[in-house]
């Protein structure tokens, strides 16, 4: 599988990373080099193998239903690049 320029633009869009048109060919080459190298996995037949998500081999622990957090409005908003009163602000979103 090899990426064409349109796919590079599409995944950059999905990842919300702006690309200048001039960057597309270089990225395309780099990504294709990486993906081409990854193709070596095709040597393996893994049809019957159960996937492993992570190395932690245990069941999920659960916490009790108690309010132990929150009430931190100032700290939560303190790093905001645009704060409007008690809200985060972003350019108007049209639904």
């Amino acid at each position: 599988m090899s990426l064409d320029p349109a796919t590079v633009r599409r995944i950059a869009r999905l990842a919300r990373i702006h690309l200048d048109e001039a960057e597309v060919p270089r990225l395309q080459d780099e990504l294709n080099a990486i993906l081409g190298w990854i193709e070596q996995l095709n040597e393996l037949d893994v049809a019957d193998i159960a996937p492993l998500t992570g190395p932690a081999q245990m069941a999920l622990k659960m916490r009790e239903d108690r309010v132990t957090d929150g009430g931190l409005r100032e700290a939560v908003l303190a790093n905001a690049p645009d704060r409007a009163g008690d809200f985060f602000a972003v350019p108007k979103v049209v639904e």
Partner: protein
Amino acid sequence: MLTDLTLAEASAGLAARRFSAAELTEAHLAAIAALNPRLNAYITLAADSARAEAADADAARARGEAGPLAGIPLAIKDLFCTAGLRTTAASRILGNFIPPYESTVTANLRRAGAVFLGKANLDEFAMGSSNMTSAFGPVENPWKPRGDAAAKLVPGGSSGGSAAAVAARLALGATGTDTGGSIRQPASFCGIAGIKPTYGRCSRWGIVAFASSLDQAGPFARTVQDCAMLLGAMAGHDPKDSTSADRPVPDFAAACSRSLRGMRIGIPREYRAPGMSGEIEALWQRGLDWLRAAGAEPVEVSLPHTKYGLATYYIVAPAECSSNLARYDGVRFGLREDGADLTELYERTRAAGFGDEVRRRILIGTYVLSAGYYDAYYLKAQKVRALIHRDFTEAFAKVDALLTPTAPSAAFAQGANMDDPVQMYLNDVFTVPASMAGVPAMSVPAGLDSDGLPLGLQVIGRPFDEETVFAVAAAIEREAGFDAQPAIRAGVAP
């Protein structure tokens, strides 16, 4: 010089009141002031708070309440959130982020009495093997090739600043994180010890995430024993991290003096990759001889899927990172670049905030998870990961630990491998499999190459058996008698 002490020696000296924590900290701050402008090992210095913490440690000792690391000055990888102290992940996108909270690992270290000298440089978001991707500039390796004092080598990555700081005596120890080799490879490049413990041994809470199923915190120090002391303080169950293991923390330091008699050490034949340098091969052989001399029995074993580790890693880690880094969007913290609408704000912020390597990995990760490619890449990688995991399980049915080289080469020049990402990725060929399997692995300095640059050997253990890893690494350390020092270090700068 106080900066030349090992952590254990410094600890004993403090306990015996031969010097104070304030003096120990001042000595390190002076060394940092002299060398950091050149080495760039620290992104952010915390001199004032370090002095205050040292004074606290002295006071605690006077009260008879000194913790196990009271007064020990450390460098903290700038991936650990530290309350009130800027945390950047070496990225422009975190801007001047001041966390309102303290990571569990650093909180544990603080509770043990440690002094934080500052935040150590790293590859941006811990993505790299050279520390060249930091938005705050590269770190210079304090080691010089014989006869070339002008050469600038990389310290390895991603925890390059931590490793360089410890090697150059700008800290007695440091925290690092290891996702595919980010503790072990820089330890090897800088001639110090570093361990990536079992996945789940240290809490990930409050550490800026790169790849959640792989990230694991661990310590650097100049001796195996020092690493054991640090890990003992860093580790422990954390209910705030669902993947944190609910197990007692053993006495790692005590394990360092365990005998290897009767131990079986596996030599994975697949690590003898074609093209391995003769020097590395010879060092590995010497390591075996040392272990034999210490009473262990070397056994050849097979980890058949070793060669697929890296390719698997470069699917899994980017996939997770593409999602983990979505939160850097210019809305709640960090950099914001304005845009006409929200999408443009996101796209411009993230384009301006992320460096090339981070962008590359986010794009790869986005691609391998996208509709139509998930099965071919991500799902397949998870299946190969299961095979790699099985390889280790089967090997550990036969042996107590594995011995391999840490990295395929010694430190290389700044700028090398930069135009070929795949070539750069190959640095992690020996470290990635243990990361995929989540097993503990440590790099211990074992010798110098023909250029006089340090090389490490890697000891890999069973899940949650760091004690055996420490025992084997300590035996190598004793047998190797590695006592070389970097050209640039506190008090010495050519």
